[in-house]
């Protein structure tokens, strides 16, 4: 069955507009994806009909809001194939989820002389929390390097892992390079030395089917807004046995069962890690995005995106003066590049005036820029609703940029 991209596009109201008199080609999906009408409607419906605080009200609205909120947790559990909903902790996003693990699990389990291993292609959100932890407890941050195709140097992994390694933080799909990492192998090898593994799935979740049990991942984090859901909501998946041992991250309402001035008893999982009134509408929207994603089929969407990437890559190879940053054999959705005659920020501006939205910058992965010796790259990133015509628009805008600087 052929993929009906126009039907998909019709579900995204934001796509149907012009910018500067040109049809919008939104190719900045690695930064954030657009939202389908069903997600927008779900959030509106919550505010129009069900708005109430959750887990405490005895009235109808609170019960409806609570039911929708917890239904979203079950949808996310199913999406990741977690063993139990108590393993799904809602956070503000992937960044907060990593900070939660670094602060709570890291604070309790990582000490002086211990090591944390991350990779050279990590997003700043999977670098800085670990640096902060290392500084606090006297642990050492180690880095698995990448090669010039933007792939992990897997031959160096064994040498970097030892019984001192307590945690490995690894990105599933790189936002700067598009590389899909062999996380199964990394998890297996890390477990062999007794280390836990946190997988940063912020970019992966809309493109790759994830089964946390099959992967045997200890922690998996992601954000809703990169999978057609709203901003400000994401999650931490962690194995129940690990969550049980972790101290709370933040204190407040909802994470307790009994408070006296002498002692506080913490709530059960996962509520122990969800202090305060959560992002209820965002969580419900997150659930709607899961429904949308599963209804279309992650594999079907990913196949379409792969065709787009292949089509774009073929044109990139032929484009004079274009240098691709990130040419891994196993990659998805991201075309990162520089032009020899035009700085990425000038490209961003010129493309914008042609209606083509891309990202220009370091993509919150400065070490990747340092590896390739560039201050920034231009990045086009694809989602389910993108078309071959939009990629043609990208390359004709690039031609125009080259002419301006010619």
């Amino acid at each position, binding site marked *: 069955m052929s993929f009906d991209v126009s039907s998909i596009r019709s579900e995204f109201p934001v796509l149907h507009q012009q910018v500067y008199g040109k049809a919008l080609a939104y190719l900045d999906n690695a930064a954030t994806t657009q939202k389908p009408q069903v997600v927008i409607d779900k959030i509106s419906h919550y505010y129009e009909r069900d708005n109430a605080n959750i887990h405490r009200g005895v009235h109808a609205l609170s019960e409806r809001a609570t039911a929708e909120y917890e239904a979203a947790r079950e949808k996310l559990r199913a999406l990741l194939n977690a063993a139990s909903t108590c393993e799904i902790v809602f956070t503000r996003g992937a960044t907060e989820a990593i900070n939660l693990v670094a602060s709570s699990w890291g604070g309790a389990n990582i000490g002086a002389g211990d090591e944390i291993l991350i990779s050279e292609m990590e997003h700043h959100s999977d670098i800085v929390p670990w640096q902060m932890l290392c500084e606090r407890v006297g642990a050492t941050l180690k880095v698995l390097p990448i090669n010039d195709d933007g792939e992990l140097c897997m031959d160096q992994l064994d040498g970097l892992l030892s019984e001192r390694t307590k945690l490995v933080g690894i990105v599933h799909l790189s936002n700067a390079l598009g590389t899909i990492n062999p996380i199964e192998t990394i998890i297996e090898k890390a477990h062999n030395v007794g280390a836990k593994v946190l997988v940063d799935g912020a970019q992966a979740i809309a493109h790759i089917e994830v089964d946390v049990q099959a992967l045997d991942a200890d922690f998996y984090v992601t954000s809703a807004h990169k999978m057609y859901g709203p901003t400000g909501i994401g999650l931490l998946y962690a194995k129940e046995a690990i969550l049980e041992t972790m101290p709370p991250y933040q204190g407040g309402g909802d994470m307790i069962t009994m408070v006296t001035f002498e002692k506080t008893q913490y709530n059960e999982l996962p509520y122990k890690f969800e202090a305060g009134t959560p992002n209820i509408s965002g969580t419900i929207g997150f659930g709607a995005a899961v429904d949308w994603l599963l209804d279309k089929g992650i594999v079907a969407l990913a196949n379409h995106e792969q065709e787009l990437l292949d089509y774009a890559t073929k044109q990139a190879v032929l484009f004079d003066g274009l240098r691709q940053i990130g040419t891994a054999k196993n990659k998805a959705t991201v075309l990162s590049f520089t032009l020899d005659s035009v700085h990425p*920020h*000038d490209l961003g501006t010129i493309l914008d*005036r042609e209606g083509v939205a891309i990202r*220009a*910058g370091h993509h919150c992965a400065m070490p990747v820029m340092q590896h390739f010796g560039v201050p*920034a790259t231009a990045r086009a990133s694809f989602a389910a609703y993108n078309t071959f015509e939009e990629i043609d628009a990208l390359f004709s805008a690039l031609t125009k940029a080259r002419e*301006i600087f010619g």
Partner: protein
Amino acid sequence: MFDLRDLYLQVIVDHNKSPRNYGVLNPSSHDAEGYNPLCGDQLHIYLNINDDGVIEDVKFEGQGCAISTASASLMTEALKGKSKEEFQQVFENFKHMATSDLDEAPDEEVLGKLAVLAGVREFPSRIKCATLCWHTMKSAIENTDEPAKTE
């Protein structure tokens, strides 16, 4: 409708391609670094200011987009031979031009060739590209140790 060519005027494209006064001034009486954390543009400005407070020589080096490189190149041309007080006046004028309303004509008497950068007004995300070198110049003249930032 504002056209891209109003931003990327030929003189800007030229200064980007062959920046004037590019390189290190050694020795120099003043110097400063500038950095735009949003886009990674980096700039180092070197000056020789004589006893009368006149900028005798100025050079810059670094990496940045066309707007930032051309702006720095044009600035070094404009400021050679100017006094510190004159710098302050041109700087104020330049800042005003970069953020003023589109219908306001730049003060070409003070700004001269620098008026070609007036186009950045229409591109809010690019104003800082044009002003980074000026902030860096101010740091250099005032001998501040902190790198200049646009944020």
